């Protein structure tokens, strides 16, 4: 017998249990195939209607809330670009204070969720996020990572991967796309002693949903690093969003793991990794890459995989296995 849909904040075993109710409406102006909305739709389903969303400036904000319209069926606030962490801190502090004083119902749980982009998180919003983590505000902070400033037209961020073309890391005589290694936000979150941190990916909805439930139930700040393919900025056909997201996992480019109260766990093991070339060749932003650059990127990924395997204490993400040519 099929499992029934669950209520908010309950874990699921299959995607058939994801609640039907939509808390974000269509009609917004996100690009075709935007990865953000697969993620946001499901995380809101997991959180339920008793949720306040804080949304620093970015694609998600501008495409959903051009006055007099809003796609959000939950209370939502945008203040500025660099202060998602601090605005959420204030929202959470106010809920706490007003509940204590009996102005808000004491027994009613109100979730506070931040949806922020990579620019608003790893760059300009970094300090405010760090403060929020360190002060132990009960907030779920979701980083919707599309690996560049897409809202302003594809400029590089501290999350842009090695090799990627952006408008500020163009391919020219001297520059050949981004040449540095991106920030490791998971480790930065863990260094703040957050109780729960995890990577998520829209191609893996059950894993994503359950991590949201865990994040919401954590007794302090929780961090979800969401991989969010951007057809516009990464230069691929919008129909491939989920495929690109999946390939990121299958190549070990995006390892799905969690840090749960001190314990690391890879939640989607990949025993035979595909070469990162498979991921690279799907996207126009990597088109210029030389064999040498691809090799360098593969090394970066190998190192990252090795690091995560070390964290979990066993080889859960396996070696690269080239497919046999037919």
């Amino acid at each position, binding site marked *: 017998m099929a499992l029934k849909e669950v209520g908010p904040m309950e874990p699921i075993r299959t995607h058939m249990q994801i609640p039907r109710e939509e808390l974000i409406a269509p009609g917004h102006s996100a690009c075709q195939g935007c990865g953000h909305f697969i993620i946001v739709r499901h995380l809101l389903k997991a959180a339920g*209607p*008793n*949720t*306040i969303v*804080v949304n620093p400036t970015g694609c998600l*904000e*501008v495409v959903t*809330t*051009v*006055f*007099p*319209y*809003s796609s*959000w*069926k*939950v*209370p*939502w*606030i*945008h*203040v*500025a670009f*660099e*202060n998602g*962490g*601090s*605005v*959420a*801190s*204030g*929202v*959470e*502090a*106010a*809920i*706490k*204070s*007003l509940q*204590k*004083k009996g*102005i*808000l119902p004491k027994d009613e749980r*109100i979730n506070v969720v931040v949806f922020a982009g990579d620019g608003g998180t790893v760059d300009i919003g970094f*300090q*405010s996020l*760090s*403060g929020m983590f*360190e*002060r132990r505000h009960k907030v779920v902070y979701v980083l919707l990572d599309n690996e560049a400033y897409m809202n302003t037209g594809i400029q590089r961020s501290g999350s842009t991967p090695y090799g990627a073309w952006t408008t500020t890391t163009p391919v020219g005589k001297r520059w050949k796309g981004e040449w540095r290694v991106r920030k490791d936000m998971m480790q930065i979150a863990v260094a703040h002693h957050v109780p729960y941190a995890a990577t998520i990916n829209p191609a893996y909805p059950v894993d994503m949903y359950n991590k949201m439930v865990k994040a919401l139930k954590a007794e302090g700040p929780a961090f979800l690093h969401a991989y969010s393919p951007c057809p516009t900025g990464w230069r691929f056909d919008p129909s491939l969003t989920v495929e690109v997201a999946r390939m990121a996992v299958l190549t070990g480019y995006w390892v799905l793991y969690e840090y749960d109260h001190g314990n690391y766990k890879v939640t989607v093991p990949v025993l035979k990794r595909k070469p990162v070339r498979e991921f690279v060749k799907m996207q126009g932003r990597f088109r210029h890459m030389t064999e040498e650059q691809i090799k360098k990127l593969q090394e970066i990924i190998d190192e990252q995989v090795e690091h995560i395997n070390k964290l979990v204490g066993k080889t859960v993400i396996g070696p690269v296995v080239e497919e046999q040519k037919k």
Partner: protein
Amino acid sequence: MITMVKMVRKALTTNYAVAHAAKDSDVDVIAAYPITPSTPAAEKLAEYVANGELDAEYVHVESEHSAASALVGASAVGARAFTVTASQGLIYMSEVLYIASGLRLPIVLGVASRALSAPLSIWGDMHDIAPLRDAGLIIYFVSSAQEAYDSVIQAFKVAEDPRVHLPAIVDYDGFIMSHVTEPVDVIDREDVLKYIPKKVTWNTLNPKQPISIGTVGDPDYYYEFKYQQQVAMENAVKVAEEADKEFEKMFGRGYGLIEEYRMDDAEVAMIAYGAHAGTARVAVDKAREEGIKVGLIKLRLWRPFPTEHLMKALENVSVVGVLDRAMALGAPRQGPVVKDVISMYASDPSKAPKVASYALAIGQRDVKIEDLVAVAKQLDEFAKGKEIPNKTICIGLRE
């Protein structure tokens, strides 16, 4: 009529008076970051929360920008939200303060005004508050710890009024007020809350009635929302006056939006604000002893600017000297307030007195009574026909 309200006289610095007022206003959320010279107020608030005198959440933010941001978040949930800051901290907050005004959230701030770097100066002047004049904030200048205490309470009243819904700042001089201990009659919290009952009338984030706050205003809409803020500012003049009158009725102390001293028969006048309004008052008495018919207008509400009140007070004055404490570099006159005074008469310059612009107390250069007596004498000379320099006159500046 003064009702039977319980008051206790305490010896407080203005920093402590401001913190005390926030406590008596039963603020729900404080987010504060230390910066000289407002730090003792942030410490005192922490002490109140630590020992249970104030039931509030104290957010130990990692910057002033985050302090303002957290207050916006808190206010948007319906909390009474408060902070203190100064100088670089206020400027760092300014981005968010513009937004708080645009979102129409009634947060209140105490600002211990201090110079801006460079060179680094921890000392008092009003370079920090000056650029905030266009941000859509209600700004009070106060001249004593008592007035600071009373004005914080009044600021909540005005900011939270449905005709206004704007953030408010109570600005007091760094050090020469923030660190000076003086008598303050504090009011029982119960009575304060009769004056400012906790009633949320602004837009809030509530899962039962979800709304979206902080939307994009495209060219079809932005202008109208900015104009709404201007209307709220215009309303705030009246609301601030009402709030002051009601305060006086309940607690026996009122200040008006401007305070006139010996203006009845004054031929020339000084406009001063903040701590120096006190010194100017002493100087007016001395100058009067020497036969100079000078009066003083203490500007209390800077934003919104009490244009009508001020024009009326200046009706019979031939020369007015504006004592400003910040330098608007490169402007026709350096003072922030003098520019407002001049522009009051834009539609009919024939009504205007002659205006002399003075800069003083920059970077807390001390201003003596004699300095201001000299200003009074100079204004008298201007009234008698001496030409007023076509630029700001710098008091106490070494050549």
